């Protein structure tokens, strides 16, 4: 088969798998698990084959136009360069791991078939986005991902948190998608095509009339999808979904779609220096703010969610300094270790019966209960904190190196300001990242107090994928020399200055957090805390749903816990209160958008009920009165009717006679 055929099959197989799962889910439950896992596995194998055939050479392009669609043609196009080939491998890998993990995690869930179908559909949409060479086709995958995310976040729709989170995720990302769509149209109008290759050709020859406007419009959609400030607020709340969904969608793939989109169209953004500075500022705010917020969260998944936002900030930062190689390099590394972190967090939540770090820090020997999760999570956290030689170190150094390159004015058209912004905020974030990674590890695995509850062995399906994902987190650095061939052949090896600086601040962050923890941990015995959902036999999904639902009632807040033994509280000081609620952005949005919309809805309801309906009721009143009058004559007595008939006849006869005599 040709590479094109294989590439078409990659998104198609999970799509067919999703359809089959939806059709067979009720009638043949035995087929659901194979139908969920096998298409993803096949797609992964095909994606690897495509990547091997493409081999970092020239891009593979294939186009077919199904039907003419008016002024700017929409074509089914494939555009597979090194970025696309490698990202597809990552998506396939994470999706397969998540599907295998879900068979264990949601093994008793009654809605597992629809869940598996949605995950397959989601995988297919993401692969479509990755391979598509036409922006309209890309948009189709983009929006399917949005709706799948909505359904999957709301998987536990029995809990109000999940319902609110799914609607929030949908609305916030759509808020970004509207300008995104307008931006796509503007781009197509300027360049005369939706094809990525033609657009890039037009940009190279200076055919773009409004680069800043288009770039900013597209950035809104990217910010929504990739959870960048100011549209990142949906991502922490989306943790109300099942853990495998968080791993697949909200860590490894969907949120990476925005970054990947910018990477594909980087020349469009690079055509406008203003857009690059905006991108850099957005990335810097996102990075630092989310890292501070992560340090204050109590829910283990919310810590990881904020860290996802921060790592995506690194990627947008790399794009802002014009190095898409570094951005996608970090995307791939981050996708693997963040999926691992989330899946391991799911195991930990299942074993501990709670998602609260405060409760875990009061459990002894949790690490002995889940040795696989303990070791793999340690590896992933080291990768997250960018400690050499783990994967995060190499990718983060590539980003910082690119920023330094731009800051010192070696990156051509990229403004030096963008470089400095990204470099400084990147180093600050590296410090904070190491701090919250350390805090997470200490609180989760180094607790004191009562024995951790025994939930038995975790299923093999869940433990095995952790080790599969640990491999790239450990060995990804070896690819540093090979990957530039696949990307823009810019060097990705760490430079000495940034490597020493980055690792240095990361070590400082980790050590300071350890010191703070040693200082505060003695207090944990004095302040008993913790609500544990004890279902030793239930599957992970049920335990997690209960843990999320009980967090607010147990601690008064969905995000934080009043735990004086938390090192984050000591480190952040007065900032902690604000960081725990994400710097009041949700409250600000409530005041700015939610309340006015609610007020407007009240006015509209008043107008509809009291004004419009009055006319409708008024129109109905007269016939109603007439009807009531006529109904009174219906006595049921036949003789009355006949009498009325006779009287009417007499009146008519008299009238006719009168008319006849008067006429005569």
């Amino acid at each position, binding site marked *: 088969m040709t590479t094109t055929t294989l590439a078409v099959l990659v998104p198609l197989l999970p799509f067919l798998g999703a359809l089959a799962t939806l059709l067979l889910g009720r009638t043949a439950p035995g087929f659901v698990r194979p139908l969920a896992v096998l298409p993803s596995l096949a797609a992964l194998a095909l994606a690897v084959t495509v990547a091997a055939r493409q081999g970092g050479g020239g891009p593979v392009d294939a186009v077919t136009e199904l039907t003419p669609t008016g002024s700017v043609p929409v074509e089914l196009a494939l555009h597979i360069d090194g970025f696309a080939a490698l990202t597809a491998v990552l998506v396939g890998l994470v999706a397969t791991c998540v599907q295998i993990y879900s068979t264990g995690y949601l093994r008793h869930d009654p809605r597992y078939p629809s869940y598996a179908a949605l995950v397959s559909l989601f995988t297919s949409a993401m692969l479509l986005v990755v391979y598509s060479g036409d922006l309209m086709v890309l948009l189709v995958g983009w929006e399917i991902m949005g709706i799948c995310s909505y359904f999957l976040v709301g998987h536990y729709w029995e809990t109000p948190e999940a319902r609110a989170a799914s609607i929030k995720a949908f609305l916030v990302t759509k808020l970004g998608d509207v300008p995104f769509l307008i931006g796509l149209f503007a781009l197509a109008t300027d360049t005369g095509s939706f094809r990525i290759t033609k657009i890039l050709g037009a940009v190279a020859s200076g055919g773009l009339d409004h680069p800043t406007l288009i770039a900013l419009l597209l950035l809104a959609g990217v910010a929504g999808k990739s959870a960048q400030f100011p549209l990142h607020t949906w991502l922490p709340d989306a943790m109300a979904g099942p853990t495998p969904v968080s791993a697949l969608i909200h860590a490894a793939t969907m949120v990476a779609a925005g970054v990947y989109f910018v990477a594909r169209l980087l020349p469009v953004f690079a055509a406008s220096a203003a857009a690059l500075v905006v991108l850099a500022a957005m990335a810097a705010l996102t990075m630092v703010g989310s890292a501070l917020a992560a340090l204050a969260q109590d829910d283990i998944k919310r810590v990881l969610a904020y860290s996802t936002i921060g790592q995506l900030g690194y990627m947008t930062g790399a794009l802002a300094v014009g190095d898409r190689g570094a951005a996608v390099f970090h995307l791939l590394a981050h996708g693997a270790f963040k999926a691992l972190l989330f899946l391991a967090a799911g195991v930990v939540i299942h074993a501990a019966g709670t998602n609260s770090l405060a409760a875990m820090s009061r459990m002894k020997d949790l690490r002995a209960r889940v040795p696989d999760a303990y070791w793999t999570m340690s590896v992933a956290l080291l990768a997250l904190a960018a400690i050499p030689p783990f994967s995060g170190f190499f990718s983060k150094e590539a980003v910082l190196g690119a920023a330094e390159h731009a800051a010192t004015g070696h990156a051509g058209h990229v403004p030096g300001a963008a470089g400095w912004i990204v470099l400084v905020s990147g180093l600050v974030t590296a410090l904070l990242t190491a701090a919250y990674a350390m805090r997470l590890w200490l609180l989760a695995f180094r607790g004191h107090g009562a024995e951790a509850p025994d939930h038995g062995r975790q299923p093999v399906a869940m433990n095995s994928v952790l080790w599969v994902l640990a491999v790239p987190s450990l060995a990804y650095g070896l690819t540093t020399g090979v990957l530039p061939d696949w990307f823009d052949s810019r060097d990705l090896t760490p430079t000495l200055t940034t490597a020493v600086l980055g690792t240095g601040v990361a070590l400082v962050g980790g050590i300071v957090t350890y010191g703070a923890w040693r200082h505060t941990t003695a207090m944990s015995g004095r302040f008993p805390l913790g609500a544990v959902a004890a279902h030793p036999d239930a599957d992970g999904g049920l335990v997690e749903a209960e843990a999320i639902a009980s967090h607010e009632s147990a601690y008064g807040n969905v995000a934080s816990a009043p735990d004086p033994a938390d090192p984050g509280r000591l480190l952040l000081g007065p900032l902690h209160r604000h960081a725990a609620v994400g710097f009041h952005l949700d409250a600000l949005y409530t005041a700015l958008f939610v309340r006015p919309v609610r007020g407007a809805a009240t006015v509209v309801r008043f107008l509809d009920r009291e004004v419009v309906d009055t006319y409708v009721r008024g129109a109905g009143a007269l016939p109603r009165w007439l009807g009531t009058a006529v109904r009174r004559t*219906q006595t049921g*007595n036949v*003789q009355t009717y006949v009498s009325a008939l006779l009287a009417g006849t007499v009146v008519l006869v008299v009238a006719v006679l009168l008319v006849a005599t008067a006429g005569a």
Partner: protein
Amino acid sequence: MHLAYPAVLSALLFCTGLYGVLARRNAILVLMSVELMLNAVNLNLVAFDVWLDKTARDALHSGQALTLFTIAIAAAEIGIGLAIVLAVHRNRGTADIDRLRDTAERPGDDDTDDSGPARNEPAEKAEATA
């Protein structure tokens, strides 16, 4: 014989029948009153047929033909009517027209048009007020 005699007689018969239809309460008497009205018409028809025959304007005796027709219809009608009255009497134990008011409209049943046994009670009330 002058035309006025049968005409007056038939008018009297018709009025008697009309009074019976409007005022009697027994269904059988109402049916009999209907018969009276029909026969008043028959009488008129025959009388005018004879009168028109004298003036030789109608040789077909259509009046008499129509009378035969009416008698046939009246026979059929009384047959069906009596059968209905019998059935009603068997069902309800009465042939009183005033008590057969199931088709009456009552306040509160604009939407439902079921005529169940629940209706019997308000029927009694309506009769009491009538």
